[in-house]
C-alpha cells in the first residue's frame, strides 16, 4: 500500500527518477495533445461540425465563460493557463476508470507543482496588468498594516490549493483501494462514480480558485 504514485518508481539514476506520477502525466499529455491535434486538424467553420469538435468547442466556450464571469475580460489571455489547469485535473481524475491507473494529481508533488505554478502566475499576471508598482501596492491595501497578512495569505492559499487537491484525489483512490479489500463487488463502483464526480468538482474548484486569485491580482483589489 502506497500513499502516492511517487512511490512507484520505474527507473532511477541519482536524483533523477521516473516514477508513476511523471509517466502517467506524460501519458495524459500525449493523449490530450494527440487527441486535440487529431480533432482540430479538420475543423469546420460552417454550421455542420463533428461531434468531437462540438465537445471541444463546448469545453472551451464553458471555460472562457467561467473566466469572464469571474471578472477577467481578457479571457483569451488566461484561457491557456486556467483551461489547462482544469483540463489536466479533470482528465487525471477521469482516467481513473482505467484499471491500474493512478491519477498524477493524487501525488502531493504534482499538486504542489500546480500550486506553485499558480503562485508564480498570479503575480506575473498582476504585474502584467497593473505594472510592478501597482501590483506591489495591492499588498498594502486596505492598510499597510495588512502587508504581512497579505504575504502570509499568498503562501497559505497556495498550500491550501495543493493540499486540497491532493487530499481529495488521494483519498478517492485510497477509499477505492480500501473498499476493494473490504466489499469487493458493488460498493467500490459507487465510490468510483463518486470519485469521478469529486475529481470533476476538484478540477473546477482548482481552476476557478486560480482564476479568482489571478483576477484579484489583475484588478488590483488585493489578494485574499
Amino acid at each position: 500500500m502506497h500513499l502516492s504514485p511517487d512511490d512507484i518508481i520505474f527507473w532511477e539514476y541519482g536524483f533523477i527518477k521516473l516514477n508513476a506520477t511523471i509517466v502517467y502525466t506524460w501519458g495524459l499529455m500525449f493523449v490530450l495533445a494527440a487527441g486535440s491535434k487529431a480533432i482540430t486538424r479538420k475543423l469546420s467553420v460552417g454550421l455542420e461540425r463533428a461531434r468531437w469538435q462540438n465537445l471541444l468547442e463546448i469545453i472551451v466556450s464553458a471555460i472562457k465563460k467561467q473566466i469572464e464571469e469571474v471578472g477577467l475580460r481578457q479571457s483569451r489571455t488566461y484561457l491557456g493557463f486556467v483551461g489547462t489547469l482544469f483540463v489536466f485535473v479533470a482528465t487525471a481524475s477521469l482516467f481513473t476508470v482505467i484499471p491500474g491507473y493512478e491519477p498524477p494529481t493524487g501525488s502531493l508533488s504534482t499538486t504542489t507543482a500546480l500550486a506553485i505554478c499558480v503562485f508564480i502566475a498570479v503575480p506575473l499576471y498582476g504585474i502584467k496588468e497593473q505594472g510592478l508598482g501597482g501590483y506591489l501596492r495591492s499588498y498594502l491595501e486596505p492598510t499597510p498594516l495588512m502587508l504581512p497578512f497579505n504575504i502570509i495569505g499568498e503562501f497559505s492559499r497556495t498550500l491550501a490549493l495543493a493540499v486540497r487537491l491532493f487530499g481529495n484525489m488521494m483519498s478517492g483512490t485510497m477509499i477505492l483501494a480500501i473498499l476493494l479489500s473490504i466489499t469487493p463487488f458493488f460498493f467500490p463502483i459507487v465510490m468510483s462514480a463518486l470519485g469521478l464526480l469529486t475529481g470533476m468538482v476538484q478540477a473546477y474548484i482548482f481552476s476557478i480558485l486560480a482564476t479568482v486569485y489571478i483576477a484579484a491580482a489583475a484588478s488590483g483589489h488585493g489578494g485574499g
Partner: protein
Amino acid sequence: MLIDWFTVVAQAVNFLVLVWLLKRFFYQPILNALDARERRIAAELADADAKKMAAEKERNEFQHKNDEFDRQRTALLSKASGEAQAERQRLLAVAQNDFDNLRASREKALSREYRSLSEALTRKTCAEVFAIARKVLTDLASTTLEAHVVEAFIRRVRELGDDEKAQLASAFQSGTVSTPAASTATPMLATVTAVAEEVLVRSAFELSVAQQNAIAAVLKEMLGVKSSVRFAVEPELVSGIELVTNGHKVAWSIENHLASLEKEIGKLLENQTEYGSGPGSAPTVEIPPESR
C-alpha cells in the same frame, strides 16, 4: 516525505509543456474556428440584413411604381374611354351624314330615273301617236283630200305676207340663196338650201293636170314665176304639197303640222329634263326619242 522535489519540478515543467501543447493544438484552433463561425454568421446576418433592406427598398419602389401605374392606367382608361365616346359620336355623325347623302342621292337618282322613264314613255307615246296619225292620214289620203290639200296650198300662197312674197319673188328671179329669216314668221314656211334653177313642186300624191295648172297659175300670179314649174311625187310628205326653189320652200302638209307639234313637245320635254336634272346626279337611262 510526501513531496518529492524532483517530481515537483518535473510536473511543473510537464504542466508548462502541457499548457503550450494545448494552446497550440486545442485552444487556438478551436477559438479560431469559433471566431470564423461567428464572423461568418455575423456576415450572413449582415448580408441578410442588407438583403432585407434592399428587398424592403425594392418592395417600396415596386409599390410606388404599382401605385403610379394604377393611377396612370386609370387616367389612360378614362381618357381612352372619353376619346372612344367622342370618336363614336363623330363616327355616328359621319355615318348619319353619309346615310343622309346616300339617301338624298338615291332619292335623286330614283326621281331622275322616274323622270327619264316617264320622259321616255312620253316620247315613245308621242312617237307612237305620231306614227299612228301619219299612218291614218296616209291611209285616209284620197282624191278629195288631195283636192283640199291643193286648195289649201293655193290659199296659203295667196295669203303670204308682203315680205315673204317679195323674198320669194326675189329668190325666184335672182336664184340666190337667202337667209332663213322668214322661217320664224310662220311655221308653214320654211326655207331650205336648194340649187335647182327651176321651181319644183313636190307632193305626196300625183297631181292632176288641172291642179298642176292651178298651182302654176297662182305661182305666176302671186310670185311672178316665169320659169317652168316641175312637179314631183314625194310620198313622205303625208297628204302635203310644197314649193321648192333656190333654197326657198312654201309648203303645206300634215307632215309639217306633225313635225312642228313634235318639235314643241320635244322642247317641252327638254325643259322638263333641264329643270329636273341637277349636278352630281346618277346617270339616267337615256331613251332617245323615236324618229319617224
